[in-house]
């Protein structure tokens, strides 16, 4: 039987792995020694088989493991059965406690804004008309308090700024200091009384200016 290139190809793996023995091995050796094409093929396949197992593995796309876990364990969570144990475990989890806390705080703030007393809550309190009325009343109250507060502040800052002006003003020369001088500084008490009286009648721009001055002090 003649050993052809086809035979060499068929037995190449066995030949390279040393599993070809006896007469077959001798015949293939002889063929490869004579045939340049088969010699090149044997060399190339040997080289390739040695390198393939050591090729760098392809790097994993970032987050693939998490996406797989999300896709699979996500399914598991949806399929989970609800038993008393899982429900209690859910209720005692910090996430639930935090959520409950924020809901309670929101309700408390809402009740405060609507003027509802949580201890004496009645069906009437939840009537939309009453809720609107309470909210309206609460808003007006808050507005009135705000206005009063701003007015008080305005007076205080005006006094402070006037006092400061008075203390910074240059002291007049002794010869000019006559009781009849209209430029002489008023006493602090007089100034305060004057301002307390004039305060509410001040213009808006003056109030704003005095507030700004007070804030920068």
């Amino acid at each position, binding site marked *: 039987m003649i050993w052809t290139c086809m035979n060499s190809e068929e037995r190449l793996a066995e030949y390279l792995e040393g599993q070809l023995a006896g007469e077959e091995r001798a015949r293939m050796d002889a063929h490869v020694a004579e045939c340049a094409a088969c010699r090149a093929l044997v060399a190339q396949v040997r080289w*390739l088989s040695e390198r393939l*197992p050591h*090729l760098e*593995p392809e790097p994993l796309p970032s987050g693939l493991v998490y996406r797989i876990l999300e896709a*699979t364990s996500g*399914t598991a969570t949806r399929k989970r059965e609800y038993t008393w144990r899982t429900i209690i475990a859910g209720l005692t989890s910090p996430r639930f406690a935090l959520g409950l806390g924020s809901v309670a705080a929101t309700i408390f703030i809402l009740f405060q804004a609507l003027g509802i007393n949580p201890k004496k809550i009645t069906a009437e309190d939840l009537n939309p008309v009453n809720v609107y009325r309470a909210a309206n009343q609460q808003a007006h109250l808050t507005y009135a308090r705000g206005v009063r507060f701003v007015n008080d502040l305005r007076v205080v800052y005006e006094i402070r700024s006037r006092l400061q002006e008075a203390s910074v003003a240059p002291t007049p020369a002794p010869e000019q200091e006559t009781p009849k001088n209209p430029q002489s500084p008023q006493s602090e008490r007089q100034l305060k009384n004057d301002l307390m009286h004039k305060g509410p009648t001040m213009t808006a721009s003056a109030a704003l200016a005095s507030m700004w001055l007070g804030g920068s002090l």
Partner: protein
Amino acid sequence: MEPDSQLVVQCLRGEATAWEELVRRHTRRVYNLAYRFTSNRQEAEDLSQEVFLRLYKTLASYRAVHGEFTTWLTSVTRNLLIDHYRRTRRDRLTDSIDEEGSPAEHKAAPGRRPDETASANELSAQVQQALGKISPELREAVILRDLQGLDYREIQQVLSVPEGTVKSRINRGRIELARLLTQMGVQAE
């Protein structure tokens, strides 16, 4: 390190950490097998997710007595790869016709001087290019044997074909790959 079969038992008991460990341990193998077969990172990623979803659903059917977990995992992956190959065959045929219409892309294939030594990464890319050109039967046999390191018996189980067929496919696959690389100018030093 706990054996895979033990982790499977823990998974079936509902231990989430055991499943996480299994996924971490085998994602690289599954992804690489899919990438080497499809030559497409996005497809490999989608297929890897599909493999683990399938695995998750059928975990109860795994029995350690039937063989290594890795072999079973490889079978699941391989079956999905073949399904995917059949599903997308029509698209690929259209693509290959389009490619033949543009000879410029063939010219862009990397040529190399004989004295140049291929770096590991370059060789990996060239092998990938050549793998894409051989038939899926030969491709999967070479990937399983030479890139994934499975032995003949395991490959026989994964492919469900006789040992003689496995050996013949690996042999023919390597020869075709070697010839393609020679044509690309990638040769034994």
